[in-house]
């Protein structure tokens, strides 16, 4: 495995191995020595053509805990935002000797363009591209779900997940649908019909417009962020109506089954897609998703750059 562009690049065994590696790495991070020497001397570039402090910091922490050198190439004031072409940026990164490029980009497919081009040789890790995919987010979500719901199983067989909100524009949803399906979970999408893509019919999911009907039967409720720019765009009449049908509030929290959990990739719009008391409730694993993110991103870098998974018991 050289790049991570899409969850569809992964076999089930590879996905499970990343999760297992993340489990081991989390154990190491909890110990006294937080740093591993694995990627000493390797250079990882965070190429963020779109603002996302959360994801960038998560990848940066992951790389540093593996002793890699990290160069941040962020949107504000960088050449990317000044209209330098993707090609010239890639040639620059190649000249700098990047071993891996973690790319966040507003254009769907930009990471694949980098990976397929002859402009540079580095491994490419997709940290979110347009409305396409966000594979590291899906892996950290799967890691979190496995920890809470899988009862020791290596995969997510039989676990029921509802993904709620703006599926049309969500890279998190696309990656999660692929990975949850790969790992044996069943997925229900809950959204207004305007926020589901045409062509969704072949996806391995159930579709519902009725959140209340879906909630009691699932183990995981994964809320998607509603982007501000969707508000005035004919997708739904107004924020209040959206919240009424598709927001996770305390009334809906009561409908959830006993051991189920609430997830959100962040950043949240409290009061819109998720009520504050739900986000802060005992069912919420939203803060834990963030900390799991570092372990899972360490595992991704480890598998891609060290070319191996870290099995249990290995040091």
């Amino acid at each position, binding site marked *: 495995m050289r790049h991570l562009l899409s969850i569809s690049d992964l076999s089930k065994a590879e996905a499970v191995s990343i999760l297992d590696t993340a489990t081991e790495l989390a154990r190491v991070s909890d110990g006294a020595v937080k740093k591993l020497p694995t990627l000493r001397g390797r250079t990882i570039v965070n190429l963020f053509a779109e603002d996302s402090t959360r994801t960038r910091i998560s990848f940066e922490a992951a790389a540093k805990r593996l002793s890699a050198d990290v160069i941040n190439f962020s949107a504000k004031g960088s050449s990317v935002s000044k209209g330098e072409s*993707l090609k010239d940026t890639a040639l620059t990164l190649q000249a700098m000797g990047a071993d891996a490029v973690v790319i966040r980009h507003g254009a769907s*497919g930009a990471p694949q363009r980098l990976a397929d081009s002859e402009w540079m040789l580095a491994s490419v890790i997709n940290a979110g591209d347009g409305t396409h995919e966000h594979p590291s987010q899906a892996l950290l979500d799967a890691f979190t779900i496995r920890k809470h719901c899988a009862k020791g199983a290596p995969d997510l067989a039989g676990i029921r997940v509802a993904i709620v909100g703006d599926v049309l524009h969500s890279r998190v949803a696309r990656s999660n649908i692929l990975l949850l399906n790969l790992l044996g979970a069943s997925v229900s999408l809950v959204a207004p019909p305007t926020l589901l893509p045409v062509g969704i019919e072949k996806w391995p999911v159930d579709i519902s417009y009725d959140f209340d009907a879906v909630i009691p039967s699932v183990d995981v409720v994964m809320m998607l962020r509603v982007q501000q720019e969707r508000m005035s765009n004919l997708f739904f009449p107004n924020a209040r109506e959206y919240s009424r049908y598709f927001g996770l509030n305390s009334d809906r929290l009561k409908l959830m089954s006993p051991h189920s959990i609430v997830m959100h990739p962040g950043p949240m719009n409290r009061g819109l897609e998720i009520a504050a008391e739900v986000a802060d409730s005992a069912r919420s694993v939203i803060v834990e998703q963030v900390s799991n993110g570092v372990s899972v991103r360490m595992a991704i870098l480890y598998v891609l750059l060290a070319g191996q998974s870290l099995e249990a018991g290995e040091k």
Partner: protein
Amino acid sequence: MTVKGYLIKNAQMPDGGIKDLLITDGRIHSLAVGINDATATIIDAKGCVVLPGLVDLHTHLRQPGREDAETVLSGSRSGAKGGFTAISAMPNTSPVADNAGVVEQVFRLGQQSGLLDVFPIGAVTQGLEGAALSEIGAMADSIAQVRVFSDDGNCVFDPLVMRRALEYIKKFNGVIAQHAQEPSLTVGSQMNEGEVSAVLGLKGWPAVAEEAIIARDILLVDHVKSRLHICHVTTAGGVEIIRWAKARGINVTAEVTPHHLLLTDELARSYDPVFKVNPPLRTQKDVMALREALADGTIDIVATDHAPHTMESKECEWQEASFGMLGLETALSIVQKTMVDSKLMDWAQVADRLSTAPARIGGYSDQGRNLEIGAKANVMIINPSASWTVDKDLVVSKSRNTPFHGYELPGVVTHTFFNGMATLIDGALINSGGSE
């Protein structure tokens, strides 16, 4: 000894017969079995097919304005290489060809190249903005004698503007060539809306945005009794609407591009913008409907929508890239592959769809003539049993954005004659058409 014309020996005519064809003084001098002429250059065309010179009703030449992508001359050379003796320059240049000055400039540049006829298409509306009619009469009466009007690239979307344009061109025996794209359904659209766009997260360009305009314009042209041509039809639904209109005797013609006869939206999975085109590549079901429609005449012609773009406008992210692909040099090979080799059409139908019918729609009287004695010698030869591999670095066009790079295609265009003058011999351009 001076060359006194060309004697094409043992060539298969569009109707299947094997004959010799003698070209002298710019015309077809004789057409028979066993012609001898000691003064003519002999061309052994055994195993080859002779067709009337191809006529393209939809070409982007980029001059004036973007001479770095294509010029009238480089586009003409690309056309001669592909077997064309006439091409039609779309008006979306800079400045826009919405007045007599620009269409006369393009027409003159075409004449200077001397490689084929360049017929300028005039804009329907000023600046292609869809609001006010351009100087249609001035363009029709200019030396370019414009008869085809189009806002291609943009759709004439306002129904009242379209109605008035259809009415007004009747005075000039003109035709409106409509780029059918409902704009509010396609804001920011990147590719066909369907299964593939859903997975790729690229904004969809729904088939209905094309079909709604086709249906509306068919009703309008019937109402005002004018002439409508639908550019680059891409959807099975569009074909159905045109079939319905023709059955009712409505005066509509339609074109399909070579790329829509072969390629599908599956290619977008590469995110390589060489496959980004407007209207977009559709599904296999659409491709099969388009082939069937071209064979049964519902779609009248093949037109290339040859759209050259510089390297930097394609070497980037998909959503940043320009729409469009090259077409002139591969058009006939793609038609052979999709229509002839698949037994959907014979060579007589190819001659009709790529020469006779487009010349008729455009009103190009010396083009698209049947191969007959006395006709202007606009003739091309293809060797259908040879094949070639497309190499983007070897195309004649100034640009490199062919979607067929690396494809092995059947049918090698060996010769092109424009008004009796050879522009292509044994696959090589022999008249550079002057300097840039």
